[in-house]
């Protein structure tokens, strides 16, 4: 269909359809409303399921039900709404059901504001719900990359029987760019969902149960051991990142999503000033590209983590750095998107932004 100019949120919706979504359950919240609005029209027109739920709490549990029933299902929300979904996400992870959760981040905490932010890194990567579990989290930097990630997210979720989160900020949701929906994406060999609770007639001879309850410490520990094995496989196979200008950088920036794009412009401006700066750009936030940090040349003078938050991914940067380089942090938050010039300044005054 060639390149078309499209708003990020609508592109997320269309990419979900291209990715084979069967059902959407969601609740209105800015700045992601164009996702359900687009789907409300196009899902129903195509005989698929769209339900506007009474709350985010209900939405995620509708997702649980449909995921258990074996279909491709998603929801979409923004920061406070994702907070409300954490209970359901924990249950879905515990019951090992596949689904896709889109999170369009806004300023927080609390009601915060509706401007772009990255304050939900912990919420996405640390598991806001109870218990030991992980989501596979992608944080694309452009609408095109968001489309590519969305199109393959359902495959990834099905492959691992695990929720996948696509984490963007309000800027990606609200902006328009020319995009191509026909770019090929990775397909996986998927087995039949013989575990689905879709009625015994569909799997004669056994009764399927979607459940996260395992009373008895050893029984739950065995279940969780299996979860851990799966998470280890994901860590082994699903790390996704980009190295930019990393041959011989004076400094290395680490940034994701919109922030990484802003940093790309800063890197160009710095080059004109004779300062070579590279960037590690995690595309998957979980699993985190720890090993990428080993590739930073020892001549590098320091790592600058840049986020639209007070410093959340910074934890993973410090863990991955293992004390090799000095680490600095520059962040704007609460809905403020830093301009490239600010990052140029921050790199030029690296010492000022150093963190212990």
């Amino acid at each position, binding site marked *: 269909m060639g*390149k*078309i*100019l499209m708003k990020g949120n609508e592109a997320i919706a269309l990419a979900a359809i291209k990715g084979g979504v069967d059902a959407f359950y969601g609740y209105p919240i*800015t*700045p992601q409303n164009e996702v359900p609005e687009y789907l409300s029209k196009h899902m129903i027109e195509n005989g698929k399921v769209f339900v506007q739920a009474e709350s985010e709490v209900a939405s995620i549990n509708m997702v649980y039900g449909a995921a258990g029933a074996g279909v491709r299902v998603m929801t979409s929300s923004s920061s406070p709404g994702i907070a409300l979904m954490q209970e359901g996400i924990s249950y879905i992870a515990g019951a090992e059901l596949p689904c896709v959760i889109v999170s369009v981040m806004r300023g927080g905490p609390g009601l915060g504001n*509706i401007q772009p932010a990255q304050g939900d890194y912990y919420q996405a990567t640390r598991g806001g719900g109870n218990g030991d579990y992980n989501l596979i989290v992608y944080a694309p930097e452009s609408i095109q990359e968001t489309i590519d990630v969305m199109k393959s997210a359902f495959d990834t979720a099905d492959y691992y029987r695990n929720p996948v989160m696509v984490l963007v900020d*309000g*800027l990606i949701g*609200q*902006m*328009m*760019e*020319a995009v191509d929906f026909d770019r090929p994406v990775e397909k996986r060999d998927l087995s039949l969902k013989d575990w689905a609770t879709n009625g015994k007639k569909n799997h004669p001879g056994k009764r399927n149960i979607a459940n996260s309850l395992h009373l008895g410490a050893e029984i739950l520990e065995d279940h969780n051991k299996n979860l851990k094995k799966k998470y280890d496989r994901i860590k082994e196979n699903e790390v996704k990142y980009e190295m930019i200008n990393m041959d011989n950088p004076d400094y290395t920036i680490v940034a994701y999503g*919109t922030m990484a*794009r*802003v940093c*790309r*412009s*800063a890197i*160009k401006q710095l080059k004109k000033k004779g300062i070579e700066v590279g960037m590690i750009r995690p595309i998957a936030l979980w699993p985190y590209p720890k090993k990428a940090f080993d590739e930073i040349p020892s001549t590098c003078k320091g790592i600058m983590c840049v986020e639209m938050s007070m410093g959340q991914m910074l934890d993973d940067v410090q863990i991955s750095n293992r004390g090799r380089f000095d680490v600095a942090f520059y962040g704007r938050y609460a809905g403020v*998107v*830093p*301009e*490239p*010039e600010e990052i140029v300044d921050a790199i030029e005054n690296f010492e000022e932004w150093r963190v212990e």
Partner: protein
Amino acid sequence: MAEKTIKVAGFGGQGVMMFGKLLAYAATKEDRYSLWFPSYGPETRGGTANCAVIVSDEVINSPVFRNASHTVVFNLPSLEKFNDRVEDDSLLLYNASLIEKEVKNDKALVVGVPCNKIANDLGNPKVLNMVMLGAYLALTKLFSADVIETVLKEYLGDSKAGMLDVNKQAIKAGMDFIEDAGISYA
């Protein structure tokens, strides 16, 4: 062409978003890169609105920019907000129908266009944004009138097809205004 950063600002209802979107659509039509994003707030009507557009022959990195190559303001609050945020040798277009005071900017070529008056003379006050677009295109030559006409037609769609002619007239009137004034911007 070097990357152009464009800021369009005014009251809600002055057609600010449409102005910006048409530029982004035109760039896509010509296979150039573009990016559009709105300032968005809880209010759907009234208040001030602005959007940013970037047009480039190369992949666009940062969606945010400090200073604009082209600044288009439709009212006084927008002028006050964005007058200092312009690049050297840039262009500042303002709506002279609503901004009556003298506009000073050392970095930019400043051009006032009486958009409301020209639109009213055409019999449709709503097309003031297209008057400005005409003036903008005449000065920047960023897109040809043909491309803009094509995307305008698609933008209006079938439901507003009846509005096409008056919008085209407005663009033409804006272009004529610049030509008659003998202003040029390299």
